[in-house]
């Protein structure tokens, strides 16, 4: 049985179809990332999977329980951390946790034990009796996460858990999530942060305008996009027309200027390196630094979501169908 199984899931808001019949399955204990630009339908998908909003058509099963029919059984299994830190500002961190535990019908002793552990894990213990409204953004986020964990969920939904946080809070949340993954908790997280998806997720789905463009392990996604390998080079001097000249080199797909560096996209870095050698000699320029890089998940993402890569600003048809 899969932890999450989604079949033809669709959400319509009036004429706007926010999620267009997506299918995917998340295995037990897997960390699954949902990566997509603003308005792609990430939050809408989470809201359907967690029963916060009705499904227009299609099905979603959590540990085999249909969220639309067997709602309560499905909800009992999950923890939810929404996009907005939705804590009760007037209540203390402690009371927020206790209230959440009560909604899950847990025993008093169990709620209190979990609350203490979570406050400790998230570094909120000292201030757990002050109104949570006075907390900083990062503290509110940590409390929201703690509230999502109070029922020891088997499946945890995280909608952009770390967006807008400082390094320390981000680190803490990432560590907790990785720890849960080790304890075989299934994690479904949405993010804009490609590096986060790359580091934490077993598999990533790239969603754009309500459809899934690709689903695979981060490394495999990168491999699919050999043409997105690149060479980063900087010269001792920059002259006008250099960018255009670099674009005319054989095997170069695109060139992007990044600060004092140029990034040349190619499927064949060795070939481009040798033509670069000739080029610099002809032009009487000296390279200061040269690095070759494999495709980053960011570039894969940009390619798949049809946003432009590089300065040409062209919108490419995605190769998503093949993935």
């Amino acid at each position: 049985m899969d932890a999450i199984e989604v079949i033809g899931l669709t959400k319509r808001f009036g004429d706007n179809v926010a999620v267009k019949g997506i299918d995917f399955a998340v295995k037990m204990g897997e960390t699954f990332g949902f990566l997509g630009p603003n308005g792609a339908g990430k939050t809408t998908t989470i809201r359907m999977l967690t029963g916060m909003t009705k499904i227009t058509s299609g099905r979603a099963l959590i540990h085999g329980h249909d969220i639309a029919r067997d709602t309560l059984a499905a909800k009992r299994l999950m923890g939810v951390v929404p996009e907005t830190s939705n804590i009760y500002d007037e209540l203390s961190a402690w009371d927020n946790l206790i209230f959440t535990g009560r909604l899950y019908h847990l025993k008093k002793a169990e709620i209190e034990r979990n609350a203490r552990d979570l406050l400790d894990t998230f570094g909120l213990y000292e201030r757990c009796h002050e109104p949570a409204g006075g907390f900083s953004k990062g503290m509110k986020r940590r409390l929201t996460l703690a509230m999502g964990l109070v029922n020891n969920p088997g499946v945890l939904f995280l909608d952009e858990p770390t967006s807008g946080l400082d390094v320390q809070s981000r680190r803490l949340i990432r560590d907790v999530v990785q720890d849960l993954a080790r304890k075989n908790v299934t994690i479904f997280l949405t993010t804009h942060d490609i590096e986060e998806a790359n580091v934490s997720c077993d598999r990533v789905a790239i969603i754009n305008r309500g459809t899934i463009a690709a689903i695979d392990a981060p490394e495999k996604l990168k491999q699919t996009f050999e043409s997105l390998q690149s060479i980063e080079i900087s010269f001792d001097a920059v002259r006008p027309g250099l960018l255009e000249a670099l674009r005319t080199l054989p095997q170069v797909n695109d060139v992007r200027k990044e600060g004092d560096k140029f990034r040349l996209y190619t499927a064949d870095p060795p070939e481009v390196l040798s033509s670069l050698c000739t080029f610099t000699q002809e032009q009487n320029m000296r390279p200061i630094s040269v690095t070759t890089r494999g495709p980053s998940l960011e570039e894969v993402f940009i390619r798949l979501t049809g946003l432009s890569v590089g300065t040409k600003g062209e919108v490419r048809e995605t190769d998503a169908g093949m993935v």
Partner: protein
Amino acid sequence: MPGWFEGVSRDIGAAWAIARKDMKIYYIKPSILVSSLLFPFVMFLAFAVGREAAAGTLIPGLLAVTLLFSASSIEPVSIPIERRTKTFDRLLSAPISIRAIVLGASLSGALFASAIGVATTVIALIVLNAGVMNVAALLLGFALTSLCFSTMGTLFAAYRTENVGEVMSLLNLVRLPLLFISGVFIPLASMPGWGQSIAVFSPLTYAHDLMLFAFDGTTLFGPVIDVAALVLAIVIFQAAGIFLYQRSRE
């Protein structure tokens, strides 16, 4: 049937948790308590001054109106606010039924209004030197009237908006006319026929009648009909609330 019983006990547990949370956040606040306690006395001054009627005869009507307002005023404010802060989503994603959400939200208003009702009565009895004939009927009346109108408040908050003003103006569109067609300020006997036929559909009519019975035994419908009518109104409002909240989940 253990499965059925399990479901009901979970619903009651969740409703009680929601009611306690609402009490803590919205009701047990000095400003709310003071204004809720002052309300009946301001009303009293507004209606008693310059009239010949004995002050004591105003008490049942004032109590009915006080219960109406204190029970139905908070949920229409708190629910749109919780929609805006997204805390309402917490209730939607928790493993609890819509029934528990509607009951929990109404229960806090009902407990609060009942407490205000008791406090008002005690003060009124001391100040006006009046007496209560039937304490049990009075307390039952407080409980049912409060639950009836707090459910009405919750029902109006089902209108899916994050804007408090919208819910309040809708609610007042119903709440204020109730005052005039329920025999509180204008006795039913001196109302035209059409007014009387509307009055029988107003829960406030029965609430007022039950209070009258509790204070001096005068009653138009009798306590049994009053109680039955209030229970019926609660059931209808709860059912409508469950239906509307179910639907407002988009």
